């Protein structure tokens, strides 16, 4: 077997500093989309967010515009300011709702 060439490596000190700082920076393990919120009732048909691909029952399955149980990611704080004609409040909501007849 050929001897594998020695790879350079970063020093333990440099690694510890970077990893320690990174750990502190990521301390609040902001899971999904921390600057976004799920907004119900604002997605146009077929445009609801999901990534399961074809042959699944998920992606782009909203059958009508502004479906009350279909959600979309929007920038945080903007959901309840987005117009939704089917919503009882007239605006997007942070939870699924029963559509009013329009």
């Amino acid at each position, binding site marked *: 077997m050929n001897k594998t060439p020695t790879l350079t490596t970063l020093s333990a000190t440099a*690694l*510890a*500093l970077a*990893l320690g700082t990174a750990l502190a920076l990521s301390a609040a393990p902001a*899971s999904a989309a921390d600057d976004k919120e799920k907004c119900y009732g604002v997605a146009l048909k077929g445009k609801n*967010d999901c990534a399961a*691909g074809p042959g699944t029952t998920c992606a782009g399955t909203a059958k009508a515009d502004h479906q009350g149980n279909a959600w979309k990611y929007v920038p945080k704080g903007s959901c309840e300011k987005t117009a939704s004609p089917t919503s009882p409040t007239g605006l997007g909501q942070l939870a699924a709702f029963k559509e009013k007849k329009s």
Partner: protein
Amino acid sequence: MSDQRIFAAALLDPDAPCPAGLTAWNGSDPIQRFAVYRNNVIVSLINALAETFPVTQELVGEEFFRAMAGVFARAAPPKSALLAEYGQGFPAFIERFKPARGVPYLADVARLEMLRVRAFHAADADPLPPDQISQALADSERLPALRVTCHPSLGVLSSRYAVVSLWAAHQGLGDLARVEPGVPETALVARVGLEVQVVALPPGGDALVASFLRGLTFGEAAALAASAAAEFDLTANLALLLRYGVLTDLRLPAEVSP
């Protein structure tokens, strides 16, 4: 050719004659019935591609996309029964598809979308617990020799184009008119919980992740990434990888494979 092969080939070739020996249950013309079936096959494949590549479709419009997808589907029908995985060769096809030359970033946007579907169906893995990182830091002498394991859903795409910004602008995040397509971006695609996330990796992040995946040690991977990109920032890259929970293990090689 066997009857079945003739039948399958005729399904994808609109100029092929209707296979011999077909009969319709209600006595109608088999040629017409076969044409309906042939149409359904190709339309279902085009629909499948449209579901996997929605932004690619938005970039060129439905008519162009469906025509292009039809050429691809006839040339490269699915080899697997899993429709969700169909289209892995589509980005490379787009790259060679002359009419799409005017949209040079189209193939990379398609690659990004394929990575999203792959990430969605990848296995689960728990992110690296903070106390395991603290333990590693407490024994920092060993840090350079540690192996980093990544989440199975993780995918990285280095592009000469602004793939992340282009994709995001089509999700209503950011203004498409202000995206400069020619700015290179590296996309990190990973599933966080149940949702697939797409974020831009800082410079050198692609080399760092690729080195982790190759099984290089932490120290080697960091050094390699630093030599790959002048403005490599290890802290920024690690912070992003930790934030999205894509690092799942950190231990000595001997402990990884006993």
